[in-house]
């Protein structure tokens, strides 16, 4: 028993009187049971939004980018805003599974599976936008360095946009492999429990014939550790490179050396907010309240407070520098007196309200541990982080160096439709995932049950070991 010691002051991560078998049953239940009415309602709404998005995408491709609200000066708007927003959301999953693994944080085990699923689905959505924005998506493969018929004109490795291609594809594929390797033992558990022959076949296929030999587990743990070591700098590199799309340009407001760390912090901030939003709903729908507890919510809120704090300081320094330079150009960047009082003032103040003001409520412990409070604040952060990207892109581009070119961006119904479509697509993927995949890494949770299970902790603390 002593090898499973954990300080009594640490609150248990698994509540209730659980045995290993109980964990199996609890996690298999949402998959083996039938979907309830709420699931069907949510799925139908997501599917409708997704279909609407497909329609808008087809309209865009068929007619041209002119159906969006872009103009000569604002050549990037909602599309890149949405791209950066989705990529940012996609940062929490790998952060939870990789960085928290390296820091030996046991609370990651209840949430890493769903956070990684969210990452992968969010990066799918992100990837759509640059491809649609190409206008001729059938030529999307031109971004790859392949021998070609254009006088062997290669892709430009000096361009941050090409770095993005490499960063995002590496991130997506490595996250996918990390996620799937972790899923193998859990699929094997479902396979060995399945009664219906078809279900058994599917899970046998998905589990790759995982048998759980001691040697397999030894390799499994080593692979997880090395993948975590590789994914940690990878996750930081992805949003760093996304920020370079802006930071290496010469636009005032974009040409900023603090963009990389500030974008990474913002990405983690928004990613954790989205995990909070999704898990707040999922723990209820799938009856996993004993695994995703108040403690998990509080820990995630602490990460949100830290990264939100970094973002707030970054805003403050951008604002100060814009004013301190005394340069008239700087007064039209997204963080300036000009922006706060100009035509996009409402977008500026939405950002301040949703991203800085509302998250401060998390300093109050009562709100930090409340499910409803965290859920509402996480929604606010999702909105705020969307405005951050919109402000950086649209406000900066709307006021160029030549006042006669000043303009505004007005989204058309297609801009809105494509965005809503990706939210629907994300919802469809996540809802299907929640019905067919083990949403908690049950093998990992079993390995911490004796350390951090409520019943085991009680037993140990009672016996004064």
């Amino acid at each position, binding site marked *: *028993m002593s*090898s499973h010691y954990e300080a009594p002051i640490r609150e248990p991560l698994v509540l209730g009187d659980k*045995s*290993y*078998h109980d964990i*199996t049953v609890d996690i298999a239940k949402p998959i083996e049971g039938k979907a309830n009415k709420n699931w069907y309602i949510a799925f139908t709404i997501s599917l409708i939004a997704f279909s609407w998005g497909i329609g808008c995408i087809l309209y865009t491709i068929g007619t041209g980018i002119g159906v969006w609200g872009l103009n000569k000066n604002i050549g990037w708007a909602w599309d890149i805003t949405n791209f950066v927003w989705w990529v940012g959301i996609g940062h929490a999953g790998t952060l939870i599974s990789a960085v928290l693994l390296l820091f030996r944080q046991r609370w990651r085990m209840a949430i890493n599976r769903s956070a990684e699923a969210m990452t992968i689905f969010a990066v799918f959505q992100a990837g759509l936008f640059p491809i649609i924005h190409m206008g001729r998506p059938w030529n999307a493969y031109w971004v790859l*360095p392949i021998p070609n018929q254009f*006088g*062997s004109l*290669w892709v*430009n*490795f*000096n*361009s941050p946009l*090409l*770095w993005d291609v*490499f*960063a995002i594809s*590496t991130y997506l*594929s*490595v996250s996918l*492999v*990390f996620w799937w390797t972790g899923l*193998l*033992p859990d699929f*094997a*558990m479902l*396979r*060995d*429990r399945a009664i219906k022959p078809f279900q058994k076949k599917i899970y*046998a*296929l998905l*589990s*790759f*014939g*995982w*048998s*759980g*030999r*001691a*040697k397999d*587990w*030894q*390799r*499994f743990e*080593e*692979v997880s550790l*090395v*993948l975590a070591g*590789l994914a940690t*700098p*990878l996750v930081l*590199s992805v949003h760093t*490179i996304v920020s*370079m799309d802006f930071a290496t340009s010469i636009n005032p407001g974009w040409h900023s050396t603090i963009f990389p760390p500030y974008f990474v912090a913002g990405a983690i901030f928004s990613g954790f907010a989205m995990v909070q939003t999704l898990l707040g709903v999922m723990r209820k729908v799938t009856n996993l309240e004993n695994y995703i507890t108040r403690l998990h919510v509080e820990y995630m809120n602490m990460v949100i407070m830290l990264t939100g704090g970094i973002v707030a300081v970054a805003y403050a320094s951008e604002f100060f520098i814009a004013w301190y330079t005394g340069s008239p150009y700087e007064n039209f960047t997204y963080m300036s007196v000009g922006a706060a009082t100009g035509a996009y003032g409402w977008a500026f103040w939405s950002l301040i309200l949703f991203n800085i003001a509302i998250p401060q409520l998390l300093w109050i412990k009562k709100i930090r541990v409340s499910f409803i409070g965290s859920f509402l604040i996480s929604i606010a952060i999702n909105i705020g982080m969307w405005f951050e990207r919109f402000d950086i892109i649209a406000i900066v581009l709307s006021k160029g160096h030549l006042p006669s070119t000043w303009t505004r961006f007005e989204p058309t119904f297609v801009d809105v439709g494509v965005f809503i479509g990706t939210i629907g697509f994300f919802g469809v993927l996540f809802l299907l995932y929640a019905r067919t995949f083990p949403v908690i890494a049950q*093998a*990992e949770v*079993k*390995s911490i049950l*004796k350390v951090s299970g409520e019943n085991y902790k009680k037993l140990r603390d009672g016996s004064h070991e």
Partner: protein
Amino acid sequence: MSNKVIHALYNDDDILMDAVKKVKAAHHHIDEVFTPFPVHGLDKAMGLAPTKLAITAFLYGLTGLSFAIWMTNYMMIEDWPQDIGGKPNFSWFENMPAFVPIMFELTVFFAAHLMVITFYMRSRIWPFKEAENPDVRTTDDHFLMEISVHDNEKELTALLQETGAVEINVIDKH
């Protein structure tokens, strides 16, 4: 007779660990242990050699880095140099800062994917592979120890009984 094996099932990881140590102390060779989750220290107790996957990952990473250096040099410097914002196109090294992201991403890409493929090949797991755990309970809450029988069935059974096995089966392995 020689392909007869004993399957001892346990329902607790601590009991299993003690059992593995006792069986090893009695100088029996443990063929295999199937567990539902990673039991820490089990590989050492069984006497398994440490895995070398991390070393392969390092080598794969070096391969990726070399590939990135070769690719950027061939495409940007040798085959079709272009003037892009006045960046030096005559020397790979002077243009190198712009290639750092590519070098980093390809290092990670090669290291991660090739290591995972190596893991799947070495552990013989891939799509359509049949599972080989002898009892379905070993992915739920049971731990199974497999030991070959060499005319010592009674002795082994007694030993395993003593270690707290909840079930002992003697099976003819084909």
